[in-house]
């Protein structure tokens, strides 16, 4: 029967597609890890990078990646949660709420390079700061905001209504209820979502190209004074992150061991993102177990 054959062929095609996708992933991952891990050593992780000679490490870039992420989250989480609380608890259906949703939609669809350009315009040039960690963090905040708002809003909305009513019926104000009943309840989902968002931000490069820059000044890791110019904690200094570093060594092309440095960096980058994902999943399952166990 013609239709039966067609059905079998189609099924074969779909299975083939699935296999292609799986093979792609396995191939990519093995390439990254097999090629890259052999260049990753403690030395690699802790030596400063080199611009011209071989043997450079990624110490500063690795630190910068985490530090920029940290500052970004410091800004984006309160902002995003505030927005999420507004959308879930205070916003009345109507024109203004629609406008806010559209804004979130727009921010979510802007290419990261466009946001990088905006960052260049405002956080680098207009303010006169030049390339800074703060500028990069602000650009990454813009990129991150829609996800955090969405995660927060979903988490808050899924807190059972009767918990909220119980608190209000006892004569507790809405804001206090949000702070002490709703947010703690929503916390696990928010945490998971934030960690996943952090994973995405960690690999971001296009937005940082024009905001945090392509260089890192000489850093003295013993100096913990954030106002000092040599301190790694200073947020008003340029900071090349790991992802940006991969791009710049391949495009600037001055060091002879480009491939080694790049594949090592790529491996570290991918493993870090993987760890973020696994951490999010692990925390999610722990908390789910905790909640269902007490019931």
């Amino acid at each position, binding site marked *: 029967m013609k239709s039966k054959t067609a059905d079998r062929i189609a099924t074969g095609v*779909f299975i083939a*597609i699935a296999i292609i996708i799986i093979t792609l992933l396995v191939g990519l991952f093995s390439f990254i890890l097999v090629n890259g891990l052999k260049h990753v050593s403690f030395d690699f992780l802790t030596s400063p990078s080199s611009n011209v000679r071989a043997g450079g490490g990624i110490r500063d870039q690795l630190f910068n990646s985490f530090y920029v992420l940290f500052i970004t989250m410091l800004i984006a989480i309160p902002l995003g949660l505030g927005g999420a609380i507004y959308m879930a608890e205070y916003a009345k259906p109507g024109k203004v709420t629609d406008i806010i949703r559209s804004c979130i939609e727009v921010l979510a*669809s802007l290419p990261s390079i466009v946001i990088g350009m*905006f960052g260049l315009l405002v956080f680098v040039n207009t303010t006169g700061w030049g390339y800074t960690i703060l500028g990069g963090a602000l650009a990454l905040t*813009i990129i991150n905001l829609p996800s955090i708002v969405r995660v927060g809003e979903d988490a808050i909305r899924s807190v059972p209504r009767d918990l909220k009513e119980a608190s209000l019926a006892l004569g507790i104000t809405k804001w206090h209820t949000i702070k002490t009943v709703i947010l703690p309840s929503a916390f696990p989902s928010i945490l998971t979502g934030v960690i996943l968002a952090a994973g995405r931000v960690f690999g971001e490069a296009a937005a940082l190209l024009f905001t945090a820059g392509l260089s890192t000044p000489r850093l003295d890791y013993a100096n913990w004074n954030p106002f000092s110019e040599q301190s790694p904690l200073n947020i008003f200094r340029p900071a090349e992150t790991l992802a940006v570093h991969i791009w710049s060594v391949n495009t600037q092309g001055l060091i002879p061991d480009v491939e080694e440095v790049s594949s090592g960096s790529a491996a570290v980058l991918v493993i870090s993102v993987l760890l973020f994902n696994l951490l999010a999943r692990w925390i999610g399952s722990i908390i789910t177990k905790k909640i269902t166990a007490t019931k």
Partner: protein
Amino acid sequence: MGKIIPAKERLLKSEKNWMDGELRGKILVIICAVIMISATISITIFLGTKGLQSFIKNGVSLIEFLTSTQWNPTNKANPEYGAFPFIFGSFAVTFLSAIVAAPLGIGGAIFMTEIAPSWGRKILQPVVELLVGIPSVVYGFIGLTVLVPFVRGHVGGLGFSLLSGVIVLSIMILPTITTATDAMSALPKNLREGSYALGATRWQTIRKVLIPAALPSLLTAVVLGMARAFGEALAVQMVIGNVRDLPSNLLDASATLTTIITLNMGHTTYGSVENNTLWSMGLILLVMSFVFILLIRYLSSRRKM
């Protein structure tokens, strides 16, 4: 039980007892909402005005910018600002990668919902999520070290080509299109059951009933993928060659709006004409983002029919 304080004082709103923490909290979150609105508006305004500088302040012709294929901003005698090759490059990689990735992505979605729903989801879903997790620079790097030599050796040309760009982008937008899975699984069960009850095979059901029913959502997923492709910068830049000529075939090197911006923003002087034209390209990217959003909204409204 309140007998000592009269009822009026207890129960009526007054300056003293009017939910002070309440007001503070409300203002806090409203400020956050306002910040989000202002961020969006300021991005539009800043990029808009800066992007128009080259036309308004430097007198670059809009028509030349959009249609001419000659890009020579540094030619002191006769600078030319035809950005068409880059506009063409952007659209070309976007459409071509969508054509490649759509069947794969939708096929993957259908695999997960129709062919092997139980274990298919368990395996393919995490795989897709992992693919998303790979940062774009890493895709670019792999493209550079693996794909480009491969194309050069086995297909032709320099390796740095439109083809390489399309392949890299296809892989990158594949996960985005696979989110069509949600659309497929949201289809009501009785759609399938009705079709099977009439004696249709699975493929016939998929082809004639399910895909048409989910079409707006599937298209939305593809458009989302295209939007992502259009805006991708670094991964494409590393494999596409970055030449200013219009490509004549897939194996020619090319450039896109994003790649030109990426390469040249660093070494052009802020305020110069050449720099301003880069901002104009950024404006095109911004406008296209809005176009994609409107397209997706239109498709979503069709879905509600």
